[in-house]
């Protein structure tokens, strides 16, 4: 935590932390406490006055079917994004790890989508799946599937999941590959001598050994799907059709900036904050185990 030896106390350390603390106070802590305060207020219909209502906003949320549906939708969305991108990354890493010399070459070819902004990922996929022009709808037509994510809620959901998962494969691949490469070769060789073939070795030796990484990535991917996919949703579906792709982060934005329901949006912010805190705690508790591994 602290060096055994340190510099004598003076005004200097305060000056050093001042910029960070100032920005934290002005742009993080103050707005967050404002959000918390506003979540206890309800504005009257004419925007003339506000009333302090304690937890009424939260009670409204808890009984709001739209909100609960959005919650459920976000859970499904996040789990599918995590499962899809982690599964794909796991398979690729499992094969890449077997290539002794080319592994780094494949890594170069696979990690760059990390650098693509979510909104751009959305734009790319929305173009590929454009109902009138896109490549995929054209081919899907032959399979007898009519693609129009502007009309079908399920297709819209599938599209944002694909776009979100695509972007995250790079990250998962990187961590899976690193985890697999840190397994001592002798363990793999011992399993081979015991007669386990490549597939069996993967599922009985490698996969269990990298389970801490799987858990770590699961948390990271959930956080990603919860908070960083705003751009994808905004570019691809804007939450629609209807509310079929309105995940929580999008709803906060929409209710606050478009719907101007300040109290309700603030209450949603507070719920999200609690979720982030929970995920951070899980992640940090896990980090200790990661170090042991």
């Amino acid at each position, binding site marked *: 935590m602290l060096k055994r030896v340190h510099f004598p106390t003076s005004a200097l350390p305060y000056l050093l932390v001042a910029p960070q603390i100032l920005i934290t106070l002005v742009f993080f802590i103050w707005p967050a406490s404002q*959000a918390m305060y506003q979540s206890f207020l309800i504005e009257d219909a004419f925007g003339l006055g506000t009333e302090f209502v304690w937890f009424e906003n939260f009670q409204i949320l808890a009984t709001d079917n739209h909100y609960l549906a959005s919650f459920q939708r976000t859970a499904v969305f996040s789990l599918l994004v995590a499962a899809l991108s982690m599964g794909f990354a796991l398979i690729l890493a499992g094969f890449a790890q077997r290539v002794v010399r080319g592994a780094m070459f494949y890594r170069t070819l696979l990690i*760059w989508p990390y650098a693509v902004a*979510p909104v751009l990922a959305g734009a790319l996929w929305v*173009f590929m799946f454009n109902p009138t022009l896109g490549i995929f709808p*054209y081919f899907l037509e032959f399979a007898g599937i009519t693609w129009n994510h502007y009309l079908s809620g399920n297709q819209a959901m599938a599209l944002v999941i694909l776009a979100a998962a695509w972007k995250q494969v790079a990250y998962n691949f990187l961590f899976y590959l690193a985890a697999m490469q840190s397994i001592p070769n002798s363990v793999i060789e011992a399993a081979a001598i015991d007669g386990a073939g490549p597939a069996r070795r993967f599922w009985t030796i490698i996969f269990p050994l990298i389970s801490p990484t799987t858990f770590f990535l699961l948390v990271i991917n959930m956080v990603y799907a919860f908070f960083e996919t705003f751009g994808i949703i905004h570019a691809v579906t804007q939450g629609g059709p209807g509310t079929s792709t309105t995940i929580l982060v999008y709803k906060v934005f929409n209710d606050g900036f478009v719907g101007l329901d300040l109290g309700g949006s603030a209450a949603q912010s507070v719920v999200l904050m609690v979720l982030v805190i929970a995920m951070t705690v899980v992640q940090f508790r896990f980090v200790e185990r990661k170090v042991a591994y």
Partner: protein
Amino acid sequence: MVEHRPLTAFLTHLVLILGVFAIALPVWITFVASTHDELRMNQAPLPLWPGEYFLANMKQTLFGSGLSGTEQAPVWLMLLNSLAMALMISTGKIAISLLSAFAIVYFKFPFRMGFFWMIFITLMLPVEVRILPTFEVVANLGMLNSYWGLSIPLIASATATFMFRQVFLTVPDELLESARIDGAGPLRFFFDILLPLSRTNIAALFVILFIFGWNQYLWPLLITTDTSMTTIVMSIKQMLEAAEQSPQWNIIMTTALLAMIPPVFVVIAMQKLFVQGLTETDK
């Protein structure tokens, strides 16, 4: 690989190459779209092979009127805005995190832990959960439509501070003692010893933060209303909306390509630093 069977080796490479194709497909299609003219891009099925309008599209996108029927800033200006924002965010984050990590590790002063926890809390407050009130603060400070407004609210960083703290903790105590005997004060020690020793960590973090800064979307979307402050990443959304009336996919996709080239280039050119940065900051 333990076995040396040609067939397994072939299968391995086959799967990997298919994987690379699957990952690269969306970008390939984007690239192809940027090499055809508007007419071709409005006929289904869309081409899968590049045409010859790449340079013309580039020229029109970068310096021409851009998308017809929209009031947009020229794309080169958006690129500059993005660059300015990305650089301000990344250097700003690194600078203030280095300073606060230095204070927290090398000084013992009242409220040290209080400051530490205050910085830690920022980890739990992503911009998405406090957009409205943060917007109000920035508006009240008159920072809307400015580079300051784009960057300053994003530069407090717990992860960067933690990373530097970790780096400083691995610097042997004897170096500080030695420097003190040599007569170096705190700032001199910071600049002469700590900074040079953290060089690669700073570079690795810079790569990550540059990408983070460049790819900002929601925040610039909220606080810039003036078209001259538009960043390239946020312009895509406006273009997509415009595409519903006049689908100039060649221009839209050229813009998308331009928007992703800088960060993708950074990742590929500085792969080692990028990997180091990712694994270090996510602890």
